[in-house]
């Protein structure tokens, strides 16, 4: 369970790397220079493929494969879009990266841009991260001034620039096609796929969209070679992964761990400090909230894509929300249903109406007006949403709800039988940060 600061280079440097000279001193921009001077485009793409790096935003799609399907013969310019709309409940890994190590992201975007022959990169950052956006503004200005962005990147023949685009408060804009719509000045509602963004993305141009953490992994991958990266973890879960952990644990924060090396138990108890005295593990939403909730039986699951899938959940965004036995799974589930209802964009009917309906049912149960048949109704409605909606919001938004009703059925039955679910005492202790 060792921690390794590959993505979080600022921790290795023991201080923020918001000044370009500090980042350079920490080895920054060596990877870009290597790419520009020693590698052609395809070799960079191939390094991405070889590294086994998978998308860190939640879907886990192999990054190299995405980059390799960008058409080279397009009449339209290609773009790199960085998804910095980090809004998945329990997920705050990109925030820390942008705030303390912004150049690694810029360098990663620039490398990706070189790899796919893009003319510009866009960082779509959620509006609430205005503080981080200002750090990035400054970093972009520094990079431009130093020639790391512009008409001749680092003195090469490669012209590339980065634009920071601020969102305005909508979780759905983290969905890649909704993000593109929003970036194009539209309502952030997902598009039908196909066409996939790689073929027709931003302004109908070939577009590579990746998460902040994914793109930030490119400099170390080029620095130390894709094989070094691929050797960490398992065949399908390579490299390191930043886990955000929050909830009832004593030491919430971001922890970068090597894939597969750490179990959920180690993350919760050893790294995040476990629980208050007298409290014990009850449930965890390991990959952000849009995953199946896990109970104590899953504690020994290693943290990687395959193992979490085998345990009936998924790695998702690695935003691990942990609840101890003081919490109420019924209320937690209602709170998540509320989240998805609030964030549904409204475009497709099963999501728009289904998330509303699910929230109403759960609210009734909490309010003491639940009926036993509501539990079957929840399952049935979720079944009519899953696999039938336009995008992943409700497709995965139903997971924590259905899995809670199944895994913690007794809690729901009790709430229905006892006329509601009282609000438990929250954990008011001030946590020790980091």
């Amino acid at each position, binding site marked *: 369970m060792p921690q390794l600061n590959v993505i979080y280079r600022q921790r290795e440097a023991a201080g923020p790397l918001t000044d370009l000279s500090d980042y350079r001193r920490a080895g920054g921009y060596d990877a870009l220079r290597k790419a520009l001077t020693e590698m052609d485009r395809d070799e960079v793409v191939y390094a991405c493929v070889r590294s086994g790096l998978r998308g860190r935003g939640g879907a886990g799609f192999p990054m190299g494969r995405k980059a390799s399907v960008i058409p080279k013969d397009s009449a339209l310019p290609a773009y790199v879009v960085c998804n910095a709309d980090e809004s998945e409940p329990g997920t705050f890994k990109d925030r820390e990266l942008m705030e303390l190590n912004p150049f690694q992201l810029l360098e990663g975007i620039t490398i990706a841009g070189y790899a796919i022959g893009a003319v510009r990169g866009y960082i779509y950052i959620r509006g609430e991260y205005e503080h981080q956006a200002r750090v990035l503004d400054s970093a972009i200005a520094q990079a431009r001034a130093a020639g790391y962005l512009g008409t001749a990147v680092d003195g090469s023949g490669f012209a590339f620039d980065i634009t920071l685009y601020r969102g305005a408060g909508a979780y759905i804009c983290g969905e890649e096609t909704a993000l593109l719509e929003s970036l194009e000045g539209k309502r952030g509602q997902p598009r039908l796929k196909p066409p996939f963004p790689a073929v027709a993305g931003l302004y109908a141009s070939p577009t590579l969209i990746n998460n902040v953490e994914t793109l930030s992994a490119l400099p170390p991958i080029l620095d130390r070679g894709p094989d070094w990266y691929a050797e960490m973890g398992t065949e399908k879960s390579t490299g390191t992964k930043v886990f955000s952990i929050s909830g009832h644990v004593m030491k919430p924060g971001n922890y970068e761990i090597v894939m597969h090396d750490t179990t959920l138990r180690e993350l919760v108890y050893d790294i995040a400090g476990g629980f208050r005295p007298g409290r014990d593990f009850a449930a965890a939403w390991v990959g952000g909230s849009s995953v199946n909730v896990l109970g104590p039986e899953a504690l020994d699951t290693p943290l990687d894509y395959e193992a979490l899938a085998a345990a009936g959940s998924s790695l998702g965004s690695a935003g691990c929300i942990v609840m101890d036995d003081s919490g109420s799974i019924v209320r937690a589930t209602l709170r998540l249903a509320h989240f998805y209802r609030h964030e549904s964009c409204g*475009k*497709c009917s099963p999501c728009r*109406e289904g998330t509303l309906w699910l929230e109403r049912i759960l609210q009734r149960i909490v309010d003491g007006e639940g009926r036993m048949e509501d539990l079957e109704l929840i399952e049935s409605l979720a079944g009519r949403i899953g696999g039938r909606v336009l995008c992943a919001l409700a497709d995965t938004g139903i997971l924590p709800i259905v899995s809670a009703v199944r895994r913690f059925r007794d809690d729901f039955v009790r709430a229905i039988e006892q006329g509601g679910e009282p609000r438990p005492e929250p954990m008011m202790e001030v946590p020790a940060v980091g």
Partner: protein
Amino acid sequence: MADYAPVDLTAEGQVEFELNGRRVTAPAGTMLVDAAFAHGVEVPIFCYEPRLGAPIGACRMCLVEVEGMRGLQTACSTPVQPDMVVRTNSEVAKDGQDGVLEFLLENHPLDCPVCDKGGECPLQDRTFRFGPGTTRFVETKRHFPKPLDLSSLITLDRERCIHCYRCVRFSQDVAEDGDLVMENRGAGQEIGTNTGDQYEGRFTGNIIDLCPVGALTSIPYRFVARPWDITNTPSVCGHDATGTNVELTGREGRIGRVTSRPEPNYDVEEGWLSDLSRFAHTGNDGPGRLRQAVIRDAGRARDVSLEEAVDAAALVLRHGGRTGILLGPTATVEEGFLAQELAATALPGAIVARLGIPGDGLEALRSLPTADLSAIDGADLVVIVGGDPPNQQPIVELRVRKARRNGARIVTLGARPHALEPLGTATRALPGELAGALRGLDLAGAERAVVLWDEADLAAEPDAAAALAEGIAALGARQIELGADVNGAGLRALGIPATGLLEAAHGGGLDVLVTIKADPLAAPGASDWSWALGRLPARIAIESHATALTDSATVALPAATHYETEGVYVAMNGRAQRLRPGAPPPEGAAPGWEILVALLHRLGAPPAERTAAAVFARAAGSRPALAGLDYDAIGVLGAHIGAPAPVWPNGHNGPRAAAGAGLPLVTTTRIFGNADAHRAEGLAGVRTGADLTLNPEEAARIGLSDGGRARVRSPHGETDLPVRVDAAHPAGAAYVATGVPGAGVERLLPADRGPVRVEIGLA
């Protein structure tokens, strides 16, 4: 249903696949919903509407099972693939459709008994056929204060809305007005306009047809009828020359509604109607409607039966002397032909003419290959010479916008600023400058060019018409005439000229005038007609609505309107289509062709034909332009009349000289500014009046300001008009809105609508 795109199962490149256990084919690229529909399998839909552009997959109603694919697929956005195995009615597919309906009904009020859409509502219909029997939703439904009028024509019930996006996509992507939008997010979404604005435009009513529920309904049609006590009849619009196909809803002997046809005419209007086409019928039974035949003798008016009136008219004609017959722009081919028959048999020497533009000099243009309006979509270059299609041939606007979306270059040229100019390069050419401006256009590189040209503007500048004809021929382009008159092309095909009658009347060579749906006192040349008519001893008016003429005619015979008669109209580009009566004419009125047949009988020249179809068949047999046509050949969607033999442009060395002094006059038209719109109660909220529009520079020179009144004088007549000052209109011309009843603008114009100058002063 218009909801599905037409599929050609005989086209090249068919893909074979399995549909509900059957091996079937469809052209590659066809969406599953359309392919299935073509094979008799209806996959239910709400948001899918191919005329709005690429599918959006929002409602999820069309979920089907495709072997090998995870979950269910939306058939609207899944193209057919070789050997794909599709099940639209398997248990899981049905559960998908059921589920979506359940979600859609979750917040739908189910107030069908009081909803105007009830009985013809896709949601109601599909719930009945595909949906759940009961609801499991026990919570309170979404509530909005209701209803909300989007305009004086359309009302919005937000509770009934199922968020299918059809209406907003129409506004954004078809009409491109951008004024109707979806607001808010998630379950709080609602259709709306910019706060405080109405949704007004030239095409707004289409959103009523598009709405698959009762959220958007017609205010004029509110509570008029229920679907089970109406009849629907396919017909053609009689308010412009485009030949827009419509469906007339008749109820209790009246036209209750005009909508697009469920199966649109993809070559013409593609199912889109202008608001004039849709709502002008609300004037059909208006206060001016003639329901009573009248005979006037020595100034005394006497109500008589229609029979008596026909007898009296025959008497007048038999003894009246030299006769002229004037057909108005909405007269049918049959009426024109029977008028010619009158002159050929019973009234030898009678002059037959139409109210319209003579068109000398347009022969060469008209002989060039023409095209259906659908050809505009696929053009790589669209040139618009003169005119103002958005106001005069509205649906052309939608075709041109579509062409631009498809990548076509749009080039406009003319005197009037209009809504299509911003789509491309616009060249301003004041009267007399068209030919020169045409020569300055660079149209090179186009392979599929379509040239739209305005009948009135090119007739006024025959040198430009000649230059344009040469240009079109050189470009290998097709041409579409932007016709001024509803059935002008049909009457021309019969060989009826636009000249001769007024001249004869002026020269004292006329004793009796028969007008058939013609109001020369409200048409260009009104002053000249007025003077000539005053000298005529007898006038017979066959007319549907009261005019100055019917109020003083010797015999006034109430006629059916185009909503109430059989007949053929030929659209501006030569497409012949059938009118079918959506309701009977009022008691006391009859179709014009029947009145003419009766007159022929009374005058001793009984025609053999007893039906409009037979009359048309004989007309077609005797007029080369109509050769080969009959009602069957025209069918439901129409057929093109024969093209004239090629004519080479002959020497026209310059524009026609404008009579008078002062600024050249440019006539303008506003879609809701004509007699049809002013008669229509439903359009009261949007109709516009007449005015004189001047560039600020001209206004200042004359000493006029916005909102003031001007005295406008031409060699033909004069009138007072309110002044509008607008910098978008260039200096060097006076822009006058025509067609407005009672404004007197037509008095300024010559009968042939040729060039004229006006002097302007303070009123």
